[in-house]
């Protein structure tokens, strides 16, 4: 390195500085000098950036080719939203796969479904238990029954259409039966073949875990509502179960007596530590219970 010839000492610099600021008249000159220097520096910075971009090709590289925006243009119309969808028309419902149970669910009913599915809401235990039950047996055993269960309305998609197909099949069957019965066989049941007589003990047991099952006096059909359907009384259900399930086997007897409890096995809710019976008691107070929980757990408590 060469020696630097015009170097001032720090002392020189300091005394020069004090000389300058001694005189108030220099203030404006000094201010202007500083302003000009800063201004020049900043301008130079922009110039270098632009020069660098052009010379190295970076600007060209970054700019690339602008995508054609025509297809993304905002629609300006009072009848449409920005995408051009009518504000009056409802969007078509889509299906989504529930991350919890992997079943297809109608998107517009997903939140209530998930609440039940995760075992958080009012109906969770019932839904969960039904799912457990349905996993443990072949799914076709009562598929012939026309489903009128309102709780299942959020099952849709493939499952739904499958069911619909089956329903159509069964109604065909029904028609053919009506024809037959017109031929004089009035005594025959018109219940799609789904009577307790035709079922095995196991099938009956499984079915009665899931549905009310009371036989209607008018239609002779099984009630397919939930095990706590309001149409029929506990007595009716108990009587039916005692009647239908062989009273001789102790297993089925207990079944008949505790059909309601059996509807909520203890492990149905993933997070619940309550026993099934305490949950049963709580069932009708589900809303205030969650409120209490909420008060205890202020959101920020969980921060760390």
């Amino acid at each position: 390195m060469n020696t630097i010839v015009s170097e001032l000492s720090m002392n020189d610099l300091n005394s020069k500085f004090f000389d300058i600021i001694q005189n108030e008249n220099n203030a404006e000159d000094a201010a202007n000098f500083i302003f000009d220097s800063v201004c020049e520096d900043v301008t130079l910075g922009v110039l270098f950036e632009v020069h660098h971009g052009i010379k190295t090709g970076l600007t060209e590289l970054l700019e690339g080719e602008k995508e054609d925006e025509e297809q993304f243009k905002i629609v300006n119309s009072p009848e449409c939203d920005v995408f051009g969808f009518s504000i009056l028309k409802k969007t078509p419902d889509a299906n989504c796969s529930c991350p919890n149970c992997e079943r297809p669910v109608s998107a517009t009913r997903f939140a209530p479904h998930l609440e039940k599915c995760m075992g958080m809401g009012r109906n969770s235990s019932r839904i969960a238990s039904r799912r457990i039950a349905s996993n443990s047996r072949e799914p076709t055993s009562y598929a012939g029954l026309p489903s009128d269960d309102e709780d299942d309305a959020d099952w849709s998609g493939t499952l739904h259409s499958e069911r619909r197909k089956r329903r159509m099949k069964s109604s065909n069957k029904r028609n053919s039966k009506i024809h037959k019965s017109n031929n004089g066989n009035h005594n025959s049941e018109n219940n799609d073949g789904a009577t307790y007589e035709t079922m095995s003990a196991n099938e009956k047991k499984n079915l009665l875990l899931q549905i009310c099952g009371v036989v209607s006096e008018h239609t002779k059909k099984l009630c397919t509502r939930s095990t706590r359907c309001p149409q029929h009384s506990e007595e009716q259900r108990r009587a039916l179960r005692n009647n239908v399930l062989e009273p001789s086997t102790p297993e089925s007897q207990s079944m008949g007596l505790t059909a309601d409890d059996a509807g909520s096995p203890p492990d149905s809710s993933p997070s619940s530590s309550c026993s099934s019976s305490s949950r049963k008691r709580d069932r009708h107070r589900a809303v205030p219970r969650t409120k209490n929980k909420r008060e205890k757990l202020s959101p920020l408590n969980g921060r760390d």
Partner: protein
Amino acid sequence: MNDTGCLHLSNFKAAKGSSPYKIVHAFFVASTSYEARRYKATSCLCFSCGQPGPRLHSCLHCIYFACYGGHIQEHSKNKKHFLYVDLSYGNVFCAQCQDYIYDRELTDISRSNRVLEAKSLGISVPYTPWLPNGNEVMALKRLRKRRLISPHTTIGLRGLQNLGSTCFMNCIVQTLIHTPLLRDYFLGERHKCKTQGSGKCLVCEVSKLFQEFYSGAKTPLTLHRLLHLIWTHARHLAGYEQQDAHEFFIATLDVLHRHCMNGVEETEKKEKDRCNCIIDQIFTGGLQSDVVCTSCSGVSTTIDPFWDISLDVAGPGSLQACLERFTRAEHLGSAAKIKCSNCRAYRESTKQLTLETLPIVASFHLKRFEHSSQIDRKISAFVSFPAELDMTPFMSTHRRAVDAADNNNDPEGLFEDNRYSLFAVVNHLGSLDAGHYTAYVRQMKGSWFKCDDHMITRASLREVLDSEGYLLFYHKTVLEYECDVP
């Protein structure tokens, strides 16, 4: 991209390496030490005319300082020293090419010296434009199409399907997606996740959402996975019956904050017990609480982190008035005596809350829902809120100065810029039990949209400011660069 200098520089580097440049730069361009600054202050004058400019350069061959007014050219010609360095920015001029030339190796030296300079002075690193690395250059060459955010296209906008009373979630998601700094973070793909593709990380899910919003697709999105993740990790929300957008916002931040730990880089960044994840960087501020004993005037100060500020709406008519009241000293009264550590006795005291540090996103929650044992009701009182908000009056430093009535010397706050701009407003429409949430979001400056589940429509700023307001979101207008030296 061609940033490999020129033939003449290459020859020079082959002979002498890059250290001459490194030395000149570390002393006279970015002075990386006190000693270097002394050298620069005392020696950077033109050796020919003794002037500090115009535009001083240094010869790269022999460290000869001369101005661009002719003297550096003269030196170069006479000595046949063809390369010289501009002392403001450190760019090299080649007299044979007759132009400034750019060499990646020298650029990298320059950048690391700038960081050292900032560190040595204890200031933040000055802004430098982004430079792509080798892979990024390849990607930019291969993928030439550029998607731009413009006020005339739907890029960045997306409707959200209502999943059965989930408008509270949709509003919060719209707000998060339109948070400028969060957008930069996610579109920059800064979350590198250890759980990759497991579907269990909420940060990854939000990252995917950003891609969806900017994909150009127009059909509404279904946030079923997001809802499932949040309910899984914030079980206190316990189902969709509780639809408070504010509670959901805080719960979402909490889960995001916890899942940020899944990031490859995030885990070791914890310093002084303060989390440095993107959520905390953007949303966390410090709330200072001063309790003053009325007997001895002793002050007990605590600082707590906050994500949002809940404000009473009964009474004041504007957000600023709400904040003024929030930060006012309050006499705690004789019924709430606090033990003073100074007096060693229970004393009456005053309590004052102020903002010690401001978050980048200031979130205000107007307490419109009143829950008491007797009655739950909604307060629809009008509260005006501005598009631009200066938070300075509510800062701890400022309030102290005002209350001490000596605001003539407040050097601390002099250079601080605490201006905020409104970028999202969540509104609750209807009654307490049959309500609906909608959100106004700012896509870019002056471009507002109303998000009503799947329906996105244009909105005017006037419309936004005239709305009732339940949650108000402000973004810091000017961001400072942090000095991040390894």
